[in-house]
C-alpha cells in the first residue's frame, strides 16, 4: 500500500461577493492522491477547477472562504489552520502551486536568483546566499535549465523558459504535492511539450511525490496523468483511470467532453464533434437535484428532485448519475448506431 500524500474529504468552499452572496464553487469534493501518482482534473471553464486547486492548499483569503471538510497532507490535517500559518509551514514545503499565468508572477525588476532566495529564506533561517546559489544551480542543472538563467531578469527569458523557471522555483523545497493549474495553456506546442517533459521528470526524479494537473485540454491530460476526475458545477461527476475516462466515459457530461477532443490524427475528419448545449448553472443558487439536468440528453423528472450520490462501477470507477451504468451504455450504443 502506497502512502497517501493528499486526502480530501467532503471539502466545500465558497466565494463571498461584495453583496454578501455566497458562490458555492466547490461542493463536497473528496479525493485521494497516492505517492507516485498523478491526478488530472478536467472540466469546462467556470466549473470550479481552479477554485478546487486553491482550496486544496488550505490557503484561504477573501473572497474565498472555507466551509467544511478535511484536508490531510502527508498525514497532517491542515483544515482550519490560519492562512498565515499555512503560508509559513505548508506552502512550498508540503504543497506547491503553479497558477494559470505563472510566468506573469515574476517581478520584472528582480533577477531569478532573488525569487529563489525569497522562497528559501522564508522557510530556513540560517543559510547564506552562496549556499542558495549552489543549490539553485544544482537544481537547474538537473532539470535541464541553463544556470545562466539565475542571473537574468524575467524579460530576458522566453515564455516557455519563464514557465519552466517558475516550476523550478516552486519545487525548490521539494514539496510533496505539486498542483499545476493550466501550466501550459499560454504556450505554443513545443514549449508545452518541454514543460510537460519537465513535470514528468520531476515525478520520476523524486522532486515531488505526487501531482495534481488541471486543464481543459483532454489530449494533454491523457498523456500526463494516471487518473482523471471530471468536474461539473463544483462537484465531481466521474473518476477513473485516464484511458478508461477518455475512451469509455460513463457520465453523460464526460461523454460530451470526450466528444469534443480534436487531435491531428487519422480518422478525426470522419468523427462528428459533439457539443454540449447550454452553459453551466449559476453557482449562487445551485439547482436542486442533478446539476447537469438542464443540459442532459437523458434527463428524467426524478433527476431534478434530490441530490445524486456518487455510484461505484468496476475498476474503482465512480460516477454521479441516477441512471445505472448499463442503461447509459445502452443509450450510447443506440445513439452510435443511429449516427451510422
Amino acid at each position, binding site marked *: 500500500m502506497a502512502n497517501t500524500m493528499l486526502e480530501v474529504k467532503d471539502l466545500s468552499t465558497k466565494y463571498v461577493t461584495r453583496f454578501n452572496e455566497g458562490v458555492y464553487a466547490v461542493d463536497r469534493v473528496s479525493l485521494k492522491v497516492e505517492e507516485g501518482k498523478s491526478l488530472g482534473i478536467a472540466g*469546462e471553464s467556470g466549473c470550479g477547477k481552479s477554485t478546487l486547486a486553491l482550496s486544496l492548499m488550505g490557503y484561504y483569503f477573501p473572497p474565498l472562504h472555507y466551509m467544511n471538510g478535511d484536508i490531510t497532507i502527508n498525514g497532517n490535517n491542515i483544515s482550519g489552520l490560519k492562512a498565515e500559518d499555512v503560508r509559513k509551514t505548508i506552502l512550498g514545503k508540503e504543497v506547491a502551486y503553479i497558477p494559470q499565468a505563472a510566468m506573469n508572477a515574476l517581478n520584472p525588476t528582480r533577477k531569478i536568483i532573488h525569487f529563489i532566495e525569497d522562497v528559501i529564506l522564508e522557510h530556513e533561517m540560517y543559510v547564506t546566499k552562496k549556499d542558495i546559489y549552489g543549490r539553485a544551480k544544482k537544481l537547474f542543472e538537473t532539470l535541464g535549465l541553463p544556470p545562466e538563467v539565475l542571473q537574468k531578469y524575467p524579460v530576458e527569458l522566453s515564455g516557455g523558459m519563464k514557465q519552466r523557471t517558475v516550476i523550478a522555483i516552486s519545487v525548490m523545497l521539494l514539496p510533496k504535492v505539486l498542483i499545476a493549474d493550466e501550466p501550459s495553456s499560454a504556450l505554443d*506546442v513545443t514549449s508545452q*511539450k518541454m514543460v510537460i517533459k519537465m513535470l514528468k521528470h520531476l515525478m520520476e526524479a523524486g522532486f515531488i511525490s505526487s501531482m495534481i494537473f488541471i486543464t481543459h485540454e483532454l489530449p494533454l491530460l491523457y498523456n500526463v496523468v494516471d487518473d482523471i476526475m471530471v468536474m461539473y458545477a463544483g462537484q465531481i461527476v466521474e473518476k477513473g483511470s485516464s484511458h478508461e475516462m477518455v475512451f469509455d466515459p460513463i457520465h453523460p457530461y464526460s461523454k460530451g467532453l470526450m466528444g469534443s477532443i*480534436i487531435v491531428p490524427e487519422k480518422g478525426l475528419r470522419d468523427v462528428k464533434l459533439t457539443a454540449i448545449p447550454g452553459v453551466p448553472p449559476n453557482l449562487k443558487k445551485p439547482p436542486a437535484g442533478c446539476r447537469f439536468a438542464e443540459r442532459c440528453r437523458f434527463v428524467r423528472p426524478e433527476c431534478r428532485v434530490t441530490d445524486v450520490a456518487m455510484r461505484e462501477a468496476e475498476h474503482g470507477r465512480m460516477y454521479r448519475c441516477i441512471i445505472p451504468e448499463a442503461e447509459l451504455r445502452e443509450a450510447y450504443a443506440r445513439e452510435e448506431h443511429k449516427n451510422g
Partner: protein
Amino acid sequence: MDKEKKPYLSAKGVTKSFGFGRQKTVAVDNINLDLYEGEVISIVGESGSGKTTLSKVLLGLINQTSGDVYFQGVKRDISSQARKREYWKNIQAIFQDPFSSYNIFNKIDSVLLDCINMRGGVYFPREKKTEMMIEACSFVNLKFEELTNKYPFELSGGQMQRLMIARIFLLQPKILLADEPTSMIDACSRATILDELMHLRKEVGMTIIFITHDIGLAYYVSDNVYIMEKGRFVESGAADDVILRPKEPYTQRLINDVPKIYEEWDLSTV
C-alpha cells in the same frame, strides 16, 4: 478544386516589414496565396510566425510593404475610407479575443442593428430588422430576448464569440477570416463554435480562412492547409497530405509536439 476557376482572393508576393535598418523585421515574406470560392483553408503557425500580420494585410487593416492583393481578379483598392468600407462588405473577420472585439458602450441590439445597416442598399422596416436579428441569434443558439438591453461584458466568452458569428450571418460577406476564433475559449465550447461556423458555411456558401496554431482544428475543418514559419509558407497542400504525411522537418516537428490520444506521444524529441 477546379483549377480553371479564377481565384477569389489572391495575394501575390505580399511582404510586410516593420522598422528600418538593423531593427527591420520582415513579418510576412513574399507570400503567394490563391483562394477559390467555397474553399476553407487554414494558415497554421506558431506564435510569431506572422499569421496575424498576414491576416491584417488581407483584411486591409494595414498596408503591405510590397506585393499586391487581388480580389475577384481585380487589384484591391483601399486608398480611401469609403473604398475600405466597400471592401469590408466582402470580407469580414472574427478575432481572437471576443472581449475586445466589441464597443463596450454599445448594447448588443445596436451591435446587430449596425450589421443590418452596414449591408446597405435595401431599406428594412423596424419589424423586419428585429425578425432578422432574432433569426441570426437563433442560428447560433442564443436567445435574442435574453440579449436585448445587455452590454457585451455581461456575456461569457463563448456567447460573445457566438454573437460574432451571428454578426457574420447578418452581414453575409463573401469571405470570412477567422483569426484564432477558439483560442480564448475552452475545448468544450470550441466544438460548438466550429459546428456553427461549418453550418454557416453550408447555409451561406462562404469562403473561410482560418488562422490558427491548433493543428487539430486546422485538420478538422479545412480543405487546404498552409504551414507558416518566419513569414514564409514552408508547406502547403490538401489537409490529409500535409497533416498525415508531412514532408518538411518544421511541419513534422509541429505535429509531433501536439499531444495525441491514439498514438503514443513521444516526449524524448524536445
